[in-house]
């Protein structure tokens, strides 16, 4: 099948809470991802090699000389509520950057605010997780990561394998499916304190 081992995927986790950073790190490592955690949006951008004036470099190829992208980041997962730069601001900056816009971004929040969720999805977030994040939530990351790998490296394989529809179509399908998933979160969450039905035990990660 040629599926990349998860340890090839590097996730950048952004959260101002040290407890949540520790938790997301453990969840990601348990799922066999490589993890870097930072405590702010600005540190995240620094790590991604994006500088404030990066907009002038719109025409340069994806890795500009002042990016320290020896370590490739395959996905950014960020808390929404952070002092200074919010997760939403970070998402915007990533999506507005020519070098970073293809990196999937996932937002986490302790509050179930439908308008917040829609805003994030509209801005290009792939998923919106309610905190506390569970191992089962992380299994939703895989498709987004696999999509980026196949786009970057396996152009021929994308044509060969029917499992991976063409990027345009896949984008639409993904969006539709993601929208369905998120609509569920919005519908379920009238009050933030309502418990959601949860699967028992832990989804085992390959």
């Amino acid at each position: 099948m040629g599926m990349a081992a998860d340890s090839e995927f590097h996730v950048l986790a952004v959260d101002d809470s040290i407890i949540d950073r520790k938790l997301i790190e453990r969840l990601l490592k348990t799922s066999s991802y490589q993890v870097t955690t930072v405590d702010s949006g600005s540190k995240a951008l620094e790590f991604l090699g994006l500088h404030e004036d990066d907009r002038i470099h719109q025409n340069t190829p994806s890795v500009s000389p002042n990016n320290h992208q020896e370590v490739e980041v395959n996905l950014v997962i960020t808390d929404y509520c952070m002092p200074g730069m919010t997760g939403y601001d970070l998402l915007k900056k990533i999506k507005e950057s020519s070098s970073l816009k293809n990196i999937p971004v996932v937002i986490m929040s302790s509050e179930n605010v439908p308008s917040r969720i829609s805003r994030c999805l509209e801005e290009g977030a792939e998923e919106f997780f309610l905190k506390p994040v569970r191992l089962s939530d992380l299994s939703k990351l895989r498709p987004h990561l696999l999509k980026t790998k196949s786009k970057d490296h396996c152009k021929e394989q994308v044509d060969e394998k029917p499992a991976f529809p063409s990027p345009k179509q896949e984008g639409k399908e993904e969006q539709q499916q993601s929208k369905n998933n998120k609509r569920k979160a919005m519908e379920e969450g009238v009050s933030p304190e309502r418990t959601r039905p949860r699967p028992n035990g832990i989804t085992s990660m390959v």
Partner: protein
Amino acid sequence: MNIVNQLQRQFIDFSTSLHREGFVDDQFTQLQKLQDENSPDFVVEVVSLFFEDCEKLINNMARALEQTQGVDFKQVDASVHQLKGSSSSIGAMRVKNACIAFRSFCEAQNREGCLRCLQQVTHEYSLLKNKLQTLFTLEQQILAAGGSIPVVD
């Protein structure tokens, strides 16, 4: 019953009571499940971070509520919000619930109500601290006696 079995029995009973009495919820169980040989002290580490954070936030709230010139309720609320988040993340249910009540008093800008809630939060925090320290001690005793820590679902 040998010593390991005795300790394990104690552990199970104590764990069960923590859940039953609402000190911890399922999220705490999730944390325990994330602990493995790669990360053998994960739960203790997270819980320690939580208690440090708790103390800091409780102090912040107390200071903010003391301001005689006028309480900055937004500031108090920001601390309560943070504490609510971290208690939710580790499964500290009673602390979390105390925070929920606290937030409504912040919104209402009710200083007396806030002070009562602060007392409640502080109380729940120290109760939980004691309970978890007991739990961790039992774990250590089991391990020292050569046993393994039972998984309590």
